[in-house]
């Protein structure tokens, strides 16, 4: 009986393990997969990210040079980032903040003059 007592008393005589977020925050882990962002200047609108995304939340318009992502659909898996040929797509270590209204990440870059080899429409 009362076998929990030592644990409880240990807790009682130690500082609580609560991290007083938001007063007290912790540096995110370097590997953490957080919010997506695209260095749009470097993006070539190749649509690889859009194709590889398991959640199909990226829309790339090569002609208009727009890159958009629905952060409400994205599962922050990082597949797009891993597959981006230009390594322009990144994930911050911090998560995306909650919001009260729907939103879409929309980015517009410059239309690249030189088209990439291969047909982006394929597969």
């Amino acid at each position, binding site marked *: *009986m009362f076998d929990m007592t030592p*644990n409880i008393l*240990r807790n009682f005589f130690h500082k609580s393990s609560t991290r007083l977020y938001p007063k007290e925050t912790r540096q995110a*882990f*370097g*590997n953490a*997969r957080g919010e997506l962002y695209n260095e749009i200047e470097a993006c070539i609108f190749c649509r690889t990210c859009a194709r590889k995304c398991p959640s199909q939340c990226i829309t790339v318009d090569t002609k208009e040079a727009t890159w958009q992502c629905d952060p409400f659909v994205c*599962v922050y*898996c990082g597949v797009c980032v891993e597959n981006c040929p230009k390594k322009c797509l990144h994930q911050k270590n911090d998560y995306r903040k909650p919001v009260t209204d729907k939103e879409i990440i929309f980015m517009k870059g410059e239309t690249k003059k030189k088209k990439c080899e291969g047909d982006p429409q394929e*597969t």
Partner: protein
Amino acid sequence: MARTIIPFGPQHQVFPEPIHLKLVLEDEIVKEVVPALGYVHRGLEMLADVRDFHQMIQICERVCGICSTIHAQCYCQGIEELMGIEIPDRARFLRVIWAEIHRVQSHLLWLGLFADAFGFESLFMQCWKIREKIMDINEATGGNRVNPSINIIGGVKRDMNPDMAQWVLTQLDLVEKEVNHLEKVLLNDYTVKKRTVGKGVLTREKAMELGAVGPTLRGSGVEQDIRQIGYAAYGELAHRPVVGIDGDAYSRNRVRFLETLQAIALVREAVSKLPAGDISVKVKGKPEGEVVTRVEQPRGELMYYIKGNGGKNLDRLRIRTPTFANIPPLLSMLPGIELADVPVIVLSIDPCISCTER
């Protein structure tokens, strides 16, 4: 005798997940129970029609958030078998490491929820407090607390450098120490025993007949663990299934408790034996043919049936999760018990509805 008919769930405090039980009680003794499912059914096996077989990894991870890594591992293992891919040794060991870390996480989570089911709030808190260290390991190594997402077809995505491995081991040491503090509580405490011993007895024969798996099966004294097949690197690591005897909630509790410690030991061993080399091989081609592949997940045997047709979309992906197999045994345990023991017994199979219904 006055009958009481109550809906237990879909939204119910003691079940983190929606499941519905129609309970017929007399004097708070369960006379009849009929389950209703479908509250978390998404139909994700069908997503294979619209996602290619690589993308399905992320979907499989989300069959269930508690053992996401292991789902992905099982899936990748199946595809690799179909395509005849030999993954590098290092990848095999890394898979074991992450899988066992996941097991620790899952078992601690369960120990907490189990404690909660019999109203031991501080024990719940304690288990989950310990578990946070594992969550940190997940995030630090895999990038996410819940879905580390490290498996890919042909190996693993991320490596674990020696520093990282060392850090993981020290964290696990801390976890082990704290878990050991709980041993007496979980296995000896009067009130815990009162609530678990002799509750929901599943005999060895019944367990086999009803197709129980995992700790539910082992709690009834059957020494069966899919890891014995030796998939991934398990063949090269020392482990023996933990078994209980009585087949009651207490026995299952004990099995999971000991498995937590066993998993930590396995991680240690795997890290110490971690071979050098690549972590993945390149994958060419498309899967074709059918395969049944199994791994041992925290809740028991997980089985994937995969049928490919040589295209990028699979013909059929079928996932048989451990809880799916443990529901019939559960139904046999419920009649005749007290209402207060319903959550305890339901929790004692460590139910995961999200993967049951997919």
